[in-house]
């Protein structure tokens, strides 16, 4: 309370920096001689400040427009102008008709949805234990997760090659234990290997907002619920889960967008039959030099991920995250 009143007290004299508005107001009065009196002066005093502030926005926006928006616009333009002539929608027609595109679209979507569901389930479980069944070293684990986020995603696939590869750790243990020639783990080059890698890599992205939300949860609520006889499962379902829904929604939609756009994990898997949209763009542009087709796939990818990202912004705004 004293802080707020103090701030209010300093706020009143603050707009008293009148030097600039007065100077501009003179120009304004000269420019608009018919209008006189106090009201237009206030109007002119406010407007230039807003205009000046808006001007400060221009340089970074101009840079962004030049290096990001203009290239994106060119991609869209190129998707409508195939290099070897033809109609505007020819590239779209041939890409949409190709089986590889439809397959890649399907793979991308189900992988992203599956990985997001897995991340939410796993992240919620792990964050729940870190926050509410604390153990010595729980803080260190939370810090480890922050570090984990700063590593590139392809490291996970590289590690999985050693763990579940044909001559890797898991198969080695299996053959040692049961004396058979070959182990049963050969899912790495299938979509399931990509799914496992994506769940591993993206779960921390769900855990971070969840841990932040849990730390703000009033523990008295849990004590009261427990005191009234609620069992842990019921407390989780009826107290913790509703409180953490915004964080889950925000983290989940971020992970969904990132999974749709993931490239490193799929590239390192090296599986021929796992093609996602980013892989298809890379293949068309770099390996086949078919830029028109690559641009068409890119436009589809942009449409999906930007649409979902808009949703994430709306959900995140509502969650206050």
């Amino acid at each position, binding site marked *: 309370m004293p802080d707020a009143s*103090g701030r209010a007290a300093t706020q009143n004299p603050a707009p008293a920096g009148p030097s600039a508005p007065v100077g501009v107001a003179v120009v304004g009065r000269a420019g608009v001689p018919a209008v006189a009196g106090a009201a237009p002066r206030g109007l002119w005093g406010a407007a230039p400040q807003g205009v000046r502030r808006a001007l400060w926005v221009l*340089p970074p926006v101009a840079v962004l427009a030049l290096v990001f928006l203009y290239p994106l616009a060119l991609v869209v333009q190129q998707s409508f102008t195939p290099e070897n002539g033809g109609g505007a929608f020819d590239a779209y027609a041939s890409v949409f008709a190709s089986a590889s595109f439809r397959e890649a679209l399907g793979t991308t979507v189900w992988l992203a949805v599956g990985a997001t569901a897995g991340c939410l389930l796993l992240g919620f479980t792990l964050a729940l234990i870190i926050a509410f069944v604390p153990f010595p070293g729980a803080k260190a684990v939370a810090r480890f997760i922050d570090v984990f986020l700063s590593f590139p995603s392809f490291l996970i696939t590289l*590690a999985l090659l050693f763990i579940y590869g044909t001559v890797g750790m898991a198969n080695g243990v299996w053959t040692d234990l049961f004396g058979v020639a070959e182990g049963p783990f050969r899912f790495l080059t299938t979509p399931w290997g990509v799914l496992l890698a994506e769940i591993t890599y993206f779960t921390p992205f769900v855990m971070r907002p969840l841990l932040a939300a849990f730390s703000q949860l009033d523990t008295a609520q849990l004590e009261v619920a427990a005191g009234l006889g609620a069992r842990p499962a019921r407390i989780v379902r009826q107290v913790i889960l509703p409180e953490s829904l915004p964080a889950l929604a925000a983290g989940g939609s971020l992970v969904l967008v990132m999974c749709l756009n993931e490239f490193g994990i799929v590239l390192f898997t090296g599986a021929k039959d796992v093609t996602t949209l*980013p892989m298809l763009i890379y293949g068309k542009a770099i390996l086949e030099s078919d830029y028109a087709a690559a641009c068409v796939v890119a436009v589809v990818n942009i449409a999906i*991920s930007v649409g979902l990202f808009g949703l994430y912004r709306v959900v995140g705004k509502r969650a206050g995250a």
Partner: protein
Amino acid sequence: MLVHSKGGRWAAWGLFGLLFLPLFALPLLVVVAASFATHWSGAFPSGPTTGNYAAAVRGESLQALTTSLVTAVTASLLALTIGTWAALAAAGLKKRGKRCLDALFMLPVAVSSVVVGLAVLVAFSRPPVLLNGTGSIVVLAHTILVTAFAYQSVSAAIVRLDPAYEQAAASLGARPAHVLWRVRLPLLLPSLTAAAGLCFALSMGELSATMMLYPPDWMPLPVRVFTATDRGSLFGGSAVAVVLMATTLLVLLAVSRVRTRASYR
């Protein structure tokens, strides 16, 4: 707190260990173990050696390391400049203008890095600006990708800034530029260094856009890891990957030390 019985607590911890260790701890350990090995067929790696590291800090790999460092530092500094400028300018706007700028500067997060790479390739392989085949096209793409994160963390910090300081400075007659330089930026310094660390880490590990763009003489570390493992040299690739992780961690550690020193002021 949630589970009061001893057995239940141990069950929860057991579940945690069962999920956490194989999924998160094991991958990193395995990569480190593989980087010291020459052979892995069976439960454990064999043929301990430091030869992979000798190769990882020499010749092409060393060049890749310096390329990555130059790219990451340049891209982080550029992104920090643009992102901080935009965040400071956005803070002065009205609500709707700020929301527009937020959406605009967060857009690169939503667009796939591969698409950013493709777009940069398409736009800067033609006049008036020809960058294709130079290292600067990689730096440019990295800058685009990490600017969003710089913008996001700096604007989150600006919201938390107590306006009393700058109002006090302004009421004492300080000009806006002076307030910005002597009051707001020093107060923002901890989050600026944190943002710089984040940008650096992201740029060090960036693979997707780089794969679309890199010229033969500008190959960053992640691409080097990929080409090594793609040729079947998994152990050499692991050593390069460990060098990449260690470098990122060292820089993050250094940056967090700057942060603690700044917060004493």
